[in-house]
């Protein structure tokens, strides 16, 4: 289990990670979702001690990463498949990990088979690898110590559809045997396909978290009025949280009948009122992405 508590990371005045807390549970695949630059990679680097957090802690089964005596046997990590010496062969990179962890040499060939790298491919230098092959090698390095926790940053990048399916089955099996899997992605679809739990992050903050079922089928209402400000005020007065959808409408978790009553009482003429049809997560995600594209308008 990975526990993140009130994690904050400041670069000068920029808040890359802003007070985030979540857990990734054993036996489940947790998807860490967010647009590029949302703070996913920074959070993952902090988890494994490559970056020092300004505040907050991360523990893995109750211990800090740096306190693990032989971390490779307990936590498998893949942060960037391209961060390898281009002049080493794939097999050599696995041998280095095997030796650091003090594992039997046979483990290297076993892992090559698990990630479907042929002996011939394993003898090639990494500079000649495609991104997909690098990802497979990186996953092999993460798995070689047979750890109970996996931390993978964008592992599906560069994999073809068959590769993504393969990885989904691999991680599924891993979690089903009691392992903890945390993987990040900037693609909602990837996370939808693989994850059981979703933590969505934008601008360094968690914007939503829960099980996939909860989040994807979240009830909600889309409501629109000519006087959007008055509508928003009325809903907020009722204690309802509203989110702009990006095209002038509001989304709220309340159901349509309540929203209609609130609007009637406030005397706001509605132009649209409908169920959000489980699109809450996707809309929230698009909102985040478009906000990033509009140069950092806070979500």
């Amino acid at each position, binding site marked *: 289990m990975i526990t993140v508590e009130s994690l904050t990371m400041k670069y000068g005045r920029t808040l890359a990670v802003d007070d985030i807390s979540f857990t990734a549970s054993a036996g489940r695949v947790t998807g860490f979702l967010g647009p590029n630059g949302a703070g996913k990679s920074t959070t993952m*680097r902090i988890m*494994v*001690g*490559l*970056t*020092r957090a300004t505040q907050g802690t991360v523990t893995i089964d109750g211990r800090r*990463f*740096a306190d*693990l*005596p*032989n*971390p*490779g*046997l*307990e936590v498998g*990590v893949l*942060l*960037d498949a*391209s*961060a*390898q*010496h*281009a*002049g*080493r062969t794939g097999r*050599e*990179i696995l041998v*280095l*990990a095997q*030796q*650091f*962890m*003090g594992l039997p040499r046979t483990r290297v060939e076993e892992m090559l*088979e*698990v990630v*479907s790298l042929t002996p011939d491919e394993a003898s090639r230098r990494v500079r000649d690898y495609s991104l997909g092959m690098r990802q497979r090698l990186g996953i092999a*390095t993460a*798995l070689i110590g*047979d750890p*109970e926790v996996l931390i993978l940053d964008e592992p599906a990048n560069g994999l073809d559809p*068959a*590769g993504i*399916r*393969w990885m989904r*089955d*691999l991680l599924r*099996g*891993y979690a089903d*045997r*009691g*392992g903890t899997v945390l993987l990040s992605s900037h693609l909602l679809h990837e996370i939808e396909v693989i994850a059981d739990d979703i933590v969505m992050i934008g601008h360094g903050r968690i914007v939503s978290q829960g099980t996939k079922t909860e989040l994807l089928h979240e009830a909600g209402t889309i409501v629109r009025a000519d006087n959007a400000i008055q509508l928003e005020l009325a809903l907020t007065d009722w204690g309802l949280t509203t989110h702009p959808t990006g095209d002038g409408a509001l989304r709220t978790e309340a159901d349509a009948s309540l929203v209609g009553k609130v609007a009637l009482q406030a005397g706001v003429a509605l132009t649209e009122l409908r169920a959000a049809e489980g699109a809450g997560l996707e809309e929230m995600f698009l909102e985040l992405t478009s906000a990033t594209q509009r140069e950092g308008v806070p979500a």
Partner: protein
Amino acid sequence: MTTIAAGSSHTPRTAVHPVPLTRITAVELRKMFDTRSGFWLIASIAITAVLAAGGVIVWAPDGQLTYSTFATAIRFPVVIILPLIAILAVTSEWSQRTGLTTFTLIPHRYRIISAKAIGSVIIAIAAMALTFAVGALGNLLGAGVKGAPLVWDVTLTQCLYYVFGMVLSLLVGFMLGVLIRASTGAIVAYFILTFLLPTLFGLLASSAQWFHTLQPWVDSQFAQSGLFVFDKSLTGEQWAHIGVTGLIWLVLPLLVGLRLVMRAEVK
């Protein structure tokens, strides 16, 4: 596409032991050899040592065909190559970004850095043993080919001086790798420190009287020159020069570099 299980089911492990430093050092040594560039860099020590010995046999005047001439000639290529090995051992973790894996598998950076230092020194000592062997072969061969008398004019103490001097050069390279953490920058800095700076100090010493007496306390190459002359034992004052220049040019910047390495973010 195989879907073999990733490993055994997660049976509770027996107590996990910390990774011993000997194992980290062994892996770090392996990393210095396991790329083509690393392998040839180390091989080039042997190659240039043989070339330098050959050069002495061909060109040295008969009277100077002694063991010390061989050892001195071989020193020049080796003193350039050896620090490069130490520099690249450190900087490649950043320039090739392998640090992302290394510092995750061993989350205590000082252990990796120590292992690299020990590994570099082991290579330096092995390289010195090779240098002495090639020098001895050259001396025997030179005497045989040219019919000159066989002269062994180096004592064991002087051999140890020589090894010590070479290890100091290597450690300067290591220090620059730690301090700068970029291959090109560290290599350029090494050449400035070893070749350009001593020349400038020499010019200053010959033109300014006040610097003349100060030079041995400031110029590390000047202070260490006694280690490589195969002449006589060093005096206490010469050791003091080596100590003071070593403190200024090696220990202090190394401490700064180590502090930076411990705190720097690995990306």
